Structures are given as structure tokens and as C-alpha cells.
């Protein structure tokens, strides 16, 4: 870990100013990913601005009946929040599918969106990585890429975004509220993260010094008929090989609205709105779900070890939609009951 200075901010404006004072300063909240990466010399901030004492720790119902999740509310507190459990069960399920109870008690909503990839090569200074050191090359493309992306990849990077929560936020059309040196703004969740392109070192569209203050969920949006399905190499405490956040709005057996986001397959939570449009108005059938899955994965490309994810993702979509249709998923979801 490198040497760095530390300041505990009392107000968002002060925090933003403190980070903007140094080009490689960073905010720290839960610290679960940042401190981890600092120990490995992957992140080397010269200064840390501790934002834990800022007043961003509430979950509030908005005037439009949407829900505002404070950036500093922990993942655990969010998942177990009564409003979230009742009105956005998909979000609760996704959060509880990620990490461990201890990590969820530390990690914040703002920080969760900023998690960095778990790519082996990103994590190991001994190997080239364009995300860690632009221009050095991607070791994963010709390496062991079982956990890597199949959608939206580039010649420079095939890393995935590791979050579960973000997959649900993507499916739920969340918005991220940010304050920065140039004032406040709101970013649609779909536009929050980036694809790697030729700038794989950038994970999202935040500018230096931008502080996430909250995340908004729209009102009356997929309260029932949701399912979060996470496929991984052990039953808990592992990152997704493929995950699916599926949400349906049904009228009888006719799909009024649908939203499906994928995790573990791309540099950002993946969603195909065109495919969703095609599904709307159709009856809910296994064949229809499969056709939808084929469309979503039509542009997928495998790199050898991860090629299985293409078919696995299709099956996972079908299963998740089927689970959502049955509306049987519990908050602490359990695949063996799926």
C-alpha cells in the first residue's frame, strides 16, 4: 500500500472540494473494494476523503412515490429496508445474492456501483492489464478467461462488472444522483457504466471529484413477478458467472412490461431494450422466453474458457423469467427451490 493522507469530510461540498484538490485523491466509504485494491497496489490514491460522516445515510420515499437510496446506506440496510423489500424485492434479492453479510454491512450503495472488476489479471501486478495500466495489453483474451465477458467486449478488455446490486438497478431503471464541482446532475443507470472500448481503464462516466449522493428508483415499478438468479461456482460468497435480474408485468398471461438485466457477462450490467420491446404484448411461454434470450445473446462472443456462458446465459434468462412469472422467489433466494 502506498502512502496517503486522510481527511474526514463533514459536508458533501467539502468532500468534493477535498477530492478535487488532488488529481489522485479518492472518496472512501465502506472501503471494501478500495482498501482491498490498495493493499495490492492496484489503487494508489495520494489522498482519501472519508465521506462516512456525510448526511447521505437515509432511504426516503420521494414525492413521486419513488424511493431514494442514500449513497451511504449500507447494502445490508438497503436489502432489509421495508420499502425496498415490499416494493423492490428484486433489489433486495440481488443485494443478498452478493458478497457476505459482513461485507454487505460495510459496503455502501454508492460504493457498490464503483466496484472494480475481479479479472485475475487486473488483480495481479505481475501480468499486463489495460484496465490497470493502459497500453500494456489484455492478458485475459488469450489467457484463462472463464469468468470473463461475452458481450460488449473490445480488443483491449474483456473484464466484467462484478456487482449484483447493479444488475437489479439496471433492470429497475434506477437513476444516480451525483454532485460534483460543476454542481448536481442525474445519470440514468443505463448510462452510468461504460463498455471498455479503447478506454478500459474507465469503468463509468463519473468525472474526478463527482460524488454519488443517492440512487433513485422509479415509483410502482416491478413490485411483483421478479427474480434474481445467480449462477456461480459455489452456493454463496462467490461472484456470478452469469446472473439475471428478471422482472415482468403481467396481465393474465400477457406480458405488459418486461425488464431483464444480465450480470457477469459484460463490462456493465447488460440490457437489451429492443429485445424487451419485442416480448411485450406476447404471451408468456418458454419458447418466447428462449427466443428473447437468443436475441439478447445474439451479439455474444466467447474467448474459449468462457464460451459456455453464451448458452448458459440464455438458459439463465429463460429460468429467471420463468421464476419471475411464477412469482415464487424469496428475498433470500435459493436455487435449489428454483
Amino acid at each position: 500500500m502506498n502512502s496517503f493522507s486522510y481527511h474526514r469530510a463533514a459536508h458533501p461540498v467539502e468532500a468534493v472540494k477535498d477530492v478535487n484538490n488532488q488529481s489522485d485523491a479518492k472518496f472512501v466509504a465502506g472501503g471494501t473494494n478500495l482498501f482491498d485494491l490498495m493493499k495490492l497496489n492496484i489503487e494508489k490514491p495520494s489522498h482519501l476523503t472519508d465521506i462516512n460522516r456525510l448526511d447521505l445515510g437515509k432511504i426516503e420515499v420521494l414525492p413521486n412515490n419513488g424511493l431514494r437510496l442514500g449513497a451511504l446506506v449500507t447494502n445490508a440496510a438497503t436489502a432489509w429496508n421495508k420499502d425496498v423489500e415490499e416494493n423492490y424485492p428484486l433489489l433486495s434479492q440481488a443485494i443478498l445474492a452478493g458478497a457476505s453479510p459482513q461485507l454487505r454491512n460495510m459496503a455502501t450503495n454508492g460504493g457498490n456501483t464503483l466496484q472494480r472488476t475481479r479479472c485475475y489479471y487486473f488483480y495481479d501486478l505481475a501480468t499486463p492489464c489495460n484496465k490497470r495500466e493502459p497500453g500494456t495489453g489484455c492478458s485475459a483474451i488469450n489467457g484463462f478467461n472463464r469468468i470473463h465477458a461475452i458481450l460488449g467486449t473490445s480488443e483491449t478488455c474483456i473484464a466484467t462488472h462484478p456487482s449484483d446490486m447493479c444488475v437489479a438497478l439496471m433492470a429497475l431503471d434506477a437513476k444516480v444522483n451525483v454532485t460534483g464541482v460543476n454542481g448536481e446532475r442525474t445519470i440514468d443507470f443505463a448510462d452510468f457504466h461504460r463498455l471498455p472500448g479503447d478506454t478500459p481503464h474507465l469503468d463509468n462516466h463519473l468525472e474526478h471529484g463527482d460524488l454519488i449522493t443517492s440512487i433513485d428508483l422509479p415509483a410502482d415499478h416491478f413490485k411483483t413477478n421478479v427474480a434474481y438468479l445467480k449462477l456461480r461456482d459455489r452456493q454463496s460468497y462467490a461472484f456470478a458467472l452469469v446472473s439475471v435480474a428478471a422482472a415482468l408485468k403481467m396481465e393474465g398471461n400477457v406480458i405488459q412490461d418486461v425488464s431483464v438485466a444480465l450480470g457477469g457477462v459484460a463490462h456493465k450490467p447488460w440490457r437489451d431494450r429492443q429485445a424487451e420491446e419485442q416480448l411485450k404484448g406476447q404471451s408468456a411461454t418458454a419458447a418466447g422466453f428462449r427466443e428473447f434470450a437468443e436475441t439478447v445473446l445474439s451479439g455474444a462472443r466467447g474467448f474459449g474458457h468462457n464460451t459456455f456462458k453464451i448458452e448458459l446465459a440464455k438458459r439463465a434468462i429463460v429460468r429467471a423469467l420463468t421464476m419471475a412469472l411464477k412469482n415464487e422467489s424469496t428475498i433470500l433466494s435459493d436455487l435449489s427451490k428454483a
Partner: protein
Amino acid sequence: MKTNYTGQPANRVDGSLKVTGTAKYAAEFEAEGLLFGYIINSTIAKGKIKEIDISQAMQVAGVVQIFTHENVSGLAWFNKSYKDMDSPPGDPFRPLYDHKIRYSMQPIGLVVATTFEVARFAASLIKVTYKEEKLVTNLQDNLHRSKKAPMGKVGYVQPKSRGDAESVFAKAEYKIEGEYVHAAEHHNPLEMFATTAIWEEDGKVTLYDKTQGVSNVQLYISNIFGLSLKNVRVVSPFVGGGFGSGLRPQYQVFMATLAALELRRPVRVVMTRQQMFSFGHRPGTVQRVAMSADENGKLTSIQHEAYGETSQFEDYTEIVVNWSGTMYNCENVKLKYELVKLDVATPTDMRAPGAVTSAHAFESAIDEIAYAVKIDPLEFRKINYAEDDQVEGKPYSSKELRACYDQGAAKFGWSGRSIEPRSMREGNQLIGWGMANGAWDALQMPAKAQAVLSLDGKLTVSSGTSEIGTGTYTIMTQIAAETLGMDINDVTFKLGDTLMPMAPLQGGSWTAASVGSAVKAVCEEVKAKLFKLASKTKHSPLSGAAPKELTMAEGHIFLISDPGSRLSIIEVMRLTETDSIIESGMSGPDPAAKTTHSFNSHAAVFAEVKVDEDLGTVIVTRVVCAVAAGKILNPKTAGSQILGSVVWGISKALEEETVMDNNFGRFMNHNLGEYHVAVNKDINDIDIIFVEEHDDLVNPLGIKGVGEIGIIAVAPAIANAVFHATGVRVRDLPITMDKVLQLAEEDKNQVRV
């Protein structure tokens, strides 16, 4: 007060220390002015260090010294001085010895500083430049370079073939063959390797070390640094898991000792979790098995060959294929075991080394041949049951494997199984039942112990063995208390110190038998002394009694013929003015027994899996593990050992794999986030059965050890259950969803039957 403690499910005597956080592990010993070491490792797999620039790191306030091959001298000249009690043939790795890089993550330097954080920071400022050389780390691509495994590692025996398996196989009607693969696995005990080295003014060094053998570390360090044995004390009262990783001294003990001696200061060196992947591992192995049987299910030929990886500098061997010659009756057996040298660290024994590797392939193949002749796999095993050791031509001292079959099958409900694959399901979940069996050597090594009985009636027994979680403190206390008929609360067992009588390495499931026999022997000495003293007491009920007329139980010495005529231990000592009784004892295997009998423990494992038909996910819902391991000293701690072994087996079958990137010659998932071991959610119902097994020949205690036997048959039982559920043979561990669905890129080892 009943004092017949052995066989009772006593709670651990060290339990309260462990649940209160007061049991002290190697990194938890303190000293005034303690320095902290941080190890740096090679980023390349093969080549030479051109330059190692420590100048910037040395500028950091608080850095005391940085050791590299450039500034370390005065070490032992010959590589034989680096041999330890568990070294395989070859030239052991010598840390910081020269500029050569032999494997990725090889340790190449040590930063010593006043705090851990400063040492870690300074390590990040060291710049190393290398001259890289072409590397070879891919086992499967290099099988053509294999060579016969040499003798030399303790316990290694070359496999013996018999009959003419090839010809019989060629002509056989019912036969199967297959290739079975597993990658490297790492032990990952939860405590990371650590040493606190205390330098003393008189030139002595005390090493608080994580090890499965304090004497081995003492020998290793004294040879390398030219210290007399009496100047090296190694202490290790608690070890946070070993599983074989602590059999050989690891490089942090070298680093800590080097720094303490050079700097004349106390130094602590703790590995990082990433560094826990930078030394020995279970070797990746490729196995080929071919078998034939007649229409009645009698095995007519067995061919089993195994290719294990080893380093360029040592020939690590384990007993893999030999087991295939002993498990079943078969006249034609061809066995072959070879090594492939790669640019990797030398593999190291890992829980049930060799046997668990073998069983994965061999017991899966047995299932396959049973299916070929359409006989229930359990029935098939019974048909081919070997009463005697087929290789040595000797009877077993005891072998209650049939009882394991029967009791395990009954508990599991095996009789309700339909042989057809894909014949059971619940919704999307295909259900499968599989079984397998395994064997392990019941070994005993020479061991010594000391006993001190003090005037207050308290007994302290000691032996330089270790406590890696197996319950050594507890069972030794039980043995001592029972032998002397004392209250268990009056007995203390101490271990893990080279000042104590020498014990063997803690491995191979032999500690209970070896150290336990020594403890029993030394307590018998104390008892004999007490009987003599009791006889000398004047005007007491025991005056003049002959030793054979006396016995001990419940804290007293009494006449066998008249239990009312008795004296307490304290009374005997007071009446004879005896301050204390100090006895030493030792015990070792009976060489005569070995010429007439073979000694094995056995187990049968039954597993149920649920496999998602569409998604390929595998959950092990039930396991029954029936074990025949002689007398069970403590069903509670022994049960935990078997339970842990089953968890290991599930973890091995479904999750564990250290992934080598052959471009870099580097293990890439070197952390606990990506090297998956079983978590709580992965584990469902596990039933342990200890079948009754009486054995007077194996050792004076009649015990066989339980550290390895539980794991051996678990992975094949699960693989066989996955086949029964799905009709897919996954011959490549771990069994992940992509392999079950046959979506994996290289699925040549997945066969749909």
C-alpha cells in the same frame, strides 16, 4: 467419577481457549522491539533476476533492512543442508540463495521494518528486472516428457503389476477406459504461514512457527544457519490448520530466522494469502484407467497409470496407482506412475495425498465398469471384495469395509436406488445417488513422551507433536487420564515445543497411534512406579501388595480383589514422601506385525446430488460416510475429522482448482475469492458412521487414525452420483456447471453415455 475416557465423546480440552480467542498461534507471540517482515515474490516463472533495486525502498523511514540474494551470505553451502524430514529426492529450494527464478511467486526478498505497513509499503517500491526464459507449466501437453518416479520420499513405494492386464483387456467383452484429470489444489489452511523469531543474547533463537513438526523445523534451521540443535527452539502450541502444508518448513521461517540472526532483533514474518499459493500444492495429475470384467461382474483386468507434476528441482512422489492393486480381487493388474517436471513449486502432501487422487479416477472407473455389466455399483464392489492385501499377499489386521457398505447403505437408503441414470427428479432437479470406497494406511511412527506427576496429584504429559485441529490435546489427555485412572481435569497434555520429547511429523493419520502409544507407555511407567510406592506404604490397605494385585481407576489405586482397599494417588505420594514422579517413555511400531499383516483403514461413502437439468448446477444434498478405523478414541473429535474430510471432498469434487495460466506459468486465482473452497451454504446433511472394528495387531491402542480416510472416496462418490443423475461422466475435477452441461470448450473428458 468414571475414568475410562477413551471411546467417550469428550469436549475438547482446548475448547475454551479457542472460543475465547486466547489460543495463541505463531504470529501472536510478542517481543520488545519486534520488527515486521514482508516477503516479495517473483513475478516471472523462469529466468534470472537481472537487477533488484532496493534503493528507494531503503529510503522509507522505519525500514531496517532488505534481504535479497545479493546481500545474504553465510548460509549453508550445500543444498543437502536444506533437506528436511519430508523432502522428496532432489535439491531443495534455497530461498534468497541465488538469482535464479525457478517458479512463479518464488520468494526473492524480505523487507524488515518497524511496522507491518511500512514493510508492505517499502516492498512496493522495490524494482526487479528479470531475464525471462522459456517456461513449461502445462501438464497435459507434456505427458510425453514423463519419467518413472524415483524412490526416496519417506513412505513412497513403487507400484507392482501382476498378470497380463493388456491381453485380457484386449479380448474382454465388458470393458471401459477413460482419462481423469484434476488441476493443482492448494491447502489454504485458514491461518497463514507465520513465524515470530526471537533472537536471544546468547546466540539462541526461539521460533514460534506454524508447522506440523517442530523437530523438522529445528533440524532445517540448524542445518541452514549452522546452529547447534540446542540453540534452536521451535514452539508451536496451536496451528490454524495444516492439511499437509506444514509438513515441510516453509520459507517464512527461513526469512524470519535470517532477519532475527542478522539484525539481532525479534522479527515476525507472516505470509499473505496470495503467498499461500507460492509453495507446495496437491499436484495436478492426469490418470488413465482401463478395466474389464466378466458377465458375472468379476474384474478380469485393471490398468491404471498416473502422471503427476513435479518441480524442476525435486521429484515429489505420492502413492497414487498402488491402491488400485489392493482394493479388489483381480489377477491382472498393470500399474504405472510417472512424473512430469514443470516450472512450478515442488508439490507437497495434501490431505490423503495420492489416495484421494487415485480414488477419483479408480472408483469412478469402477462405477463405469459396473454400469458396463449392468450391476449395482455397490454389489459390484462386494463381488470383487478383497479379503486380503492383493499386493502383499497378507491378511489385513482388520477390515470391516463390508460393515461400512452395509451400515452406510442402510443409513443412506441405497437399496431403493434404481440403476438407470436420470431415473429420479424433482422438478428441474435431477437426483443422483453414487458411492465409492477408499483405504488409507494405518501407520505408527516412533514417538516419545514425558510424564510428570506432582504431589498435588496433577499429571502433566508432554510430547513435541502438534495440534492442527485434530484434537491431539484432547485425545492425549484422555489416554493419559484413563491409563492412570485419573480425573481428566487433573491431567494436562503439552505439545509443540522442541524442548519436549520428540514426536514424528503430524501427518499421515499416524499421530493418535504414534504419540498416543507413547503417552500410554509413559503413563504405564508412572503407574508401575505408583504401584511400587503403594506397596511400600506402611500400615495402609496396600502395604506389601504386588503390582499385579493392583489397579487404578477413579483417582485411586486399589486391590483388584478388594476395591475397598484403596489409596488416592496423593495419599500414596504423601505416605512415601515422594515429591514427584517423572518418567520418560517411547513407543514404536512392532516390526514383526508388519511381516504378517497389512494395516489399512477403510471407508464407504454414499452421496446424493441434485443437478439442475438446464443450468448444470450441482448441490450435494446428502452424504453418508461409514468408516472402519479401529477403535475411536473420541467420537466427537474423530467425528469432526471425518466431517471435515467430507467437506473437503465436496469442495474438491465441485470447487477446488488452482488455475495455471501457461502463458505466464502462474497460478491466477491465488486468493480465497477466486480459489473456491466450500462455504457453509455448500454443505448439507452429512452422516458419519464409525463401524465397530476390533484390532489387537495394529498398535497397543487398537486405533488407525482418522485424518485422511474420510476424504478419499468423497469426490468419486459425487462424480458417480452426478452420472446417475444426468447420464454424463465428468472425468475432470472440479465438476462445474459448464462441464455438466457439456458446454466447456474442452469437454473431451465429459462423456454422455
